[in-house]
């Protein structure tokens, strides 16, 4: 446990600063190339002595260490774009090449007796080493930042795609929840039977089903519809449910003219009526009735859906009341209200209050 925490603390691991898995491949390749080129030119233009070789090796190790430090610094700072990074990389390379000399020269002079202090600290030597170091490190820094930027871009692209997929999944879920599959397949089965029994009525009912599906699938959740329009869809829905319930389902609408013109988010009444059937009528062997009332009061549209039945003694989570409430708030704003209670010993009422803007 403790070890795990220590490990975690040692590596700064917000997603972005994580190293490229190919990091060490890049480091090895780059610095071996540098060494190779150095050796090649030394061999072509002169004689390679053991001292030269050791000097190059020590310098190479110095480069490797400094580039490693530079890389960490660049990653931590998350330098943004390639363009703004180029001059900064150059400045950093100058500083790093000076640091390299301070690091490497004493090692060579004291440790390996290569060169003399007076030679090392001549203006010419300092200038030459700085130019060489700067050039090499700048080149390294540019490639490194190119790789980092590309990786970061790929990662953000991936995140964007994931987000897009999540949004689509959420929309699809919303769509699915608007069309209850139980209702849909029962309805199709009943229609299939009705085709044989009463083809004319079956044709009519197919129209009702298309009306309902078109409304559920096409109307966007940002839109508002008149209660009148919503109720004509609810009527179609109830007629379709009548195929299933026949004389076990009765309904009545009672809506004031003012209310029928009022605007509300689509599918709100539909969902309330569907729940009244799902949790009320369909549970009763002898069915029951549904009463839908609409009125305007105090700048709010009141929808009251009453159905035969009783709430269970212990209100379980099965009613999805909280879901319905959240949905209503999402669609109609924070001031929307939804309550569910027993109206009398044989009726349950769901009442929604939707503020009219």
């Amino acid at each position: 446990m403790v070890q795990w925490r220590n490990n975690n603390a040692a590596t700064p691991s917000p997603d972005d600063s994580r190293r490229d898995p190919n990091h060490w491949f890049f480091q090895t390749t780059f610095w071996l190339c540098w060494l190779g080129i150095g050796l090649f030119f030394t061999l072509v233009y002169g004689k390679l002595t053991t001292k030269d070789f050791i000097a190059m090796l020590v310098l190479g190790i110095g480069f490797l260490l400094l580039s490693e430090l530079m890389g960490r610094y660049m990653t931590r700072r998350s330098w943004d774009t390639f363009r703004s990074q180029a001059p900064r990389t150059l400045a950093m390379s100058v500083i790093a090449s000076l640091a390299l000399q301070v690091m490497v020269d004493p090692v060579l002079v004291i440790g390996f007796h290569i060169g003399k202090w007076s030679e090392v600290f001549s203006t010419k030597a300092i200038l030459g080493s700085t130019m060489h170091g700067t050039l090499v490190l700048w080149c390294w820094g540019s490639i490194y930042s190119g790789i980092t930027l590309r990786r970061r871009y790929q990662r953000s692209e991936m995140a964007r795609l994931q987000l897009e997929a999540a949004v689509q999944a959420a929309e699809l879920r919303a769509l699915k929840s608007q069309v209850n599959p139980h209702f849909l397949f029962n309805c199709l089965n009943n229609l299939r039977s009705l085709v044989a029994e009463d083809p004319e009525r079956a044709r009519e009912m197919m129209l009702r089903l298309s009306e309902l599906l078109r409304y559920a699938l096409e109307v966007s959740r940002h839109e508002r519809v008149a209660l009148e329009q919503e109720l004509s869809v609810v009527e179609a829905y109830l007629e379709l449910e009548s195929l299933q319930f026949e004389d076990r389902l009765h309904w009545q609408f009672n809506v004031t003219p003012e209310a029928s013109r009022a605007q509300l988010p689509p599918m709100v009444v539909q969902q309330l009526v569907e729940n009244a059937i799902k949790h009320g009528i369909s549970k009763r062997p002898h069915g029951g009735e549904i009463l839908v009332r609409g009125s305007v009061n105090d700048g709010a549209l009141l929808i009251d859906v009453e159905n035969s039945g009783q709430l269970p003694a212990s209100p379980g989570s099965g009613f999805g009341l909280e879901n319905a409430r959240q949905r209503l708030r999402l669609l109609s704003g924070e001031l929307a209200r939804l309550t569910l209670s027993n109206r009398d010993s044989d009726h349950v009422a769901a009442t929604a209050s939707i503020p009219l803007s």
Partner: protein
Amino acid sequence: MKVRTLIVEDSRLARMEMRRLLDGHPDVEVVGEAGNADEAEILIPESQPDLLLLDIQLPGRNGFELLESLDSVPLVIFTTAYSEFAVQAFEQNALDYLVKPVEADRLAKALQKASNLIGQQESRETISEEGAITGRSLLKVTDRVFVKDGEHCWFVPLSEVRLLEVEGNYTRLFFGSHQPLIPKTLNYLESRLDPQVFFRASRQHLVNLNWVKDVESWFSGSLRLTLRSGQQVEVSRRQAQRFRDLMSF
């Protein structure tokens, strides 16, 4: 031999549709229709169907609750408008299940399975018939009970039930590696089961004698039975004499 079939389905149109589909199967005889569990509960003992075409979603008690209330269940093909979790859990155990609207081919396959099983059962029953003094209303060992325990459901032939144990007003059934509770008292079950097979060992236990492997004397005149599963059951002193008579010791 016709498969006597009962349709349990709340929608009249759906029942009509099922009848229409069954018209194409001359070996199936529809012996009745029920619109809810209460109707079905009356009709099933009356018409003694071989097969139920049962909708899970019913007004009032659902299809599972109906099956639980039956002493023995016919073969069952579930029908449902939308395959839910409940049905998935069943798939391995139920005879079959059909989604509505029902495809003719799928129905034919399910019916084929049913009539195969019924054929098997009948041949088994004729063999065991001689010597069996089963009363008219007693359950046979080939009868199946429906058991539901949380999300798990089983159709268990009584021959596989080795032991029944009192658990308040419920009874615990031991079969295979399972031991679920069923909402019936042990006394009631005893009255419905064949006493030649299911022996009341004590107040607590009813034992399937076909599962007894070993009998030994236990203290003060009682007996101890060892079942083939390794479980041990004590026979009370009072019942021990009856047990000896039954086994003609």
